[in-house]
Every structure is written in C-alpha cells, then in structure tokens.
C-alpha cells in the first residue's frame, strides 16, 4: 500500500518532458518534489503564474508570491505572471497538458466530484470546475476508500459533480487505473496489494486482464 508520497511519486512518472502541468492542492502538490531529474516542465498555478518553484527558504517568504493553495512559493528562471482571465484562458484553451487533482469520488465513466458535500459547509469549487471542463489530460490522486471503508471509485458519483467524463487515470494507495469505455481498467497494483483487495475496494465496473504488475517506485 502506498502513502501520500508514494502516490505522488507514482504520478510523477506520468509527466513527460515539455509538459505544462497544473497541480491541485494536497497530494498533487507533492508531485512537484518527484519530477525526474533533467526533465524540463513548467508548473502552472491558476492564480497567475507559469514557472512555479519550490517553497522559499525560511525568511525569504514573499506575500506577493503564492500558489492556488495560498502557500508561499518561489519562481524558477523563465517564469511569467499574469491575471486570472489569462490564467483561465490558457486553461480553457487546453494549453495546459496535464492536470493533477484530488477527488472525493470518481465514476467508472470518468465523472469527478470534488467540491461539495451536501449538508456540510460549501467552500466553493475554486478553479476546479474550469480545470476539469477543459484539461487535455486529468490524473486523479485519491484514496481508494473513504474513512468509513466505502469505495470512492463508483459506478456513479453520489456527490455533486465537478465535471463529467473527464478523468483519464487514477492513482490510489492501492492501484493505478485507466478509465475506459468499459469502466476502470486495472493497470498496476501497489507493492504488497493483491488484485482481490483492489476488487473489494472498487464499487464501479473493474476490468482485470491478465497478470497485473506491481508498481515500480524508486
């Protein structure tokens, strides 16, 4: 079974040279720490930055320099600032190659719910709805089951949707899965996790073909 860092490390392997990548809040933010050496990518922060760098050294925090999670950050050489209209312009026009975000639920048709739980305080969807409506490629980083042990990989999302039919791939603590017209397709198992465990933790349609390899994580 993977921890959060393991999920982030596995997702980092999906990033290709030359990609513009938007990282959501939570586990997706950790992905930035595991981009393979020598790979040239640009991180987009939807509050108005291309070329996001790591957190600043202590004492070098700048209140005018934050990411979409309101955390202090730095910039890397070649970065650019812009306003929110331009930021969502590049998102809506699919210039961002890969979006990595968290989810509360994903359906086997690629629907995603990640902004609202009825009865709980509504915080708002932030930029998520624009991101999922237009991203070329969306990978979801999430826990396979919720705290009550119920599957979050469903035949149909129960929570209000953020986007319809948009998720391409999911990485959880148990598995890597693609979304296909036939449902979730199991690609890899987390170290020490059996196919049976993944089956039990998945409520939506699950396709298992042949031997499922174990993930390789450095």
């Amino acid at each position: 079974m993977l921890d959060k860092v393991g999920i982030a490390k596995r997702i980092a392997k999906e990033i290709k040279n030359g990609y513009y990548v938007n990282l959501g809040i939570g586990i997706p933010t950790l992905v930035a720490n595991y981009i393979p050496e020598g790979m040239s990518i640009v991180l987009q922060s939807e509050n108005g930055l291309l070329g996001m760098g790591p957190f600043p050294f202590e004492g070098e925090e700048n209140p005018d320099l934050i990411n979409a999670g309101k955390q202090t950050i730095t910039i890397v050489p070649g970065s650019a600032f812009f306003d929110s209209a331009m930021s969502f312009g590049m998102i809506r026009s699919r210039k961002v190659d890969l979006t990595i975000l968290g989810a509360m639920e994903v359906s086997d048709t690629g629907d995603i719910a990640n902004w609202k739980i009825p009865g709980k305080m509504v915080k708002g969807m932030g930029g998520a709805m624009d991101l999922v409506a237009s991203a070329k490629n969306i990978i979801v980083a999430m826990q396979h089951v919720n705290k009550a042990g119920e599957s979050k990989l469903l035949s149909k999302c129960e929570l209000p949707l953020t986007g319809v039919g948009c998720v391409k791939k999911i990485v959880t603590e148990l598995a890597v899965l693609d979304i296909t017209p036939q449902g979730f397709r199991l690609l890899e198992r987390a170290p020490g996790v059996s196919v049976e465990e993944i089956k039990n933790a998945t409520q939506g349609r699950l396709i298992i073909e042949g031997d499922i390899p174990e993930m390789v994580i450095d």
Partner: protein
Amino acid sequence: MNKTIANAEEAIKGIQDNMTLMLGGFGLCGIPENCIAALVKKGVKGLTCIANNAGVDDFGIGLMLHKHQVKKMISSYVGENAELPAGVGTEVAIGKEVRKFMVDGVEKEFLMEYAFDADFALVKAWKGDTQGNLIFRGTARNFNPMMAMAGKTTIAEVEELVPAGELDPDHIHVPGIYVHHIFQGVNYEKRIEQRTVRKRN
C-alpha cells in the same frame, strides 16, 4: 488628468449601505487592505461583495463579515473563512442557458454566465501613477485587473504612487481609463495565509 485622492476614507466616501462592491485579490494576496479597513470603520451595511475569496476570520473581507456588513458574498472559494454560513456559494448550471459550440470538430456544451456589475470596484496594485495607470507584482495581480475593468467607479490603492510619466508605458498592466480614484495606501500588513518554507541544507 490627476485622479489622486488623499486616502482610503476619502476614496470610499461614495459607498453607501446596500451597494455592490467588487474586490481584487486571491486569498489575502493583492487585497485592498486600506479600503477594507476604511469600510469597517465607516460601518456601511447590507453590502454585496464580489471577490474570489472572503478573507479569513480576522483579515481581509473577513473583517467586514465579522461586523455583519456583508449581506451577500459572491465568491469561488470561501473555505478559509469559518464565519460564512452553509449554503453560501454558487449553485452551478441550474436555471442557466447552455449553448453548444464546436471545439476541435466536436460539439461541446457551454454554460452562459452573466457578467457581474458593481457600483464600486476596489483594487490594490504595487505601483500606480496620478493618471491611474497600474502595475502589479507577482501573483498579487490575480483578479485585480478584471475587477478594475468592471466597476462603475474604480478605486485603486497602491503601495507607491508616482507622478504621471514615471512608469514605463510598456509596463502598465491596467491603463488609467479604468481607474477613477487612486491613492497611496499606508501600513500594508500583507498577511501570509499559508507560510510554507523549506530548510536550507
């Protein structure tokens, strides 16, 4: 054309109870601190505020919420503010027009949204000149240019106000035509919401 005024109190003189305001900023980054402080002091009530966020409990728009000056908040994310009651936020797509457009040869549905309208827009820039031209810094630009363009009356507060002609016209982010009043703010706190750092090694 000199648009300079003395301070925030003078800037917000025209803001009355029950008006609609737009405020720039993302989180606490690039918010019009001086104008918010003046509005709290003035005590105007029944305001509708349009801003990306609602501040935190004791800073930004949160200061006005705390004093019950805000009747309605139109935001995209208010998770940082615990004072907002459940149900405040946006219900998406219900009762809105959906239109189809071709995207890369495929028909896609799009939601039509109305533009917001506000009596006053309050924005914060890094530098400005007496003609109202604005320059922002870092990610503090965010929604400020859009809000500046949308206000019936736009008030800009800046960290440094310079005479017209001192800013390079090639560097202006918001041309002064959108700005009606400008003043140099004081005592900027520029509070950091999430201080994240890494260790030197």
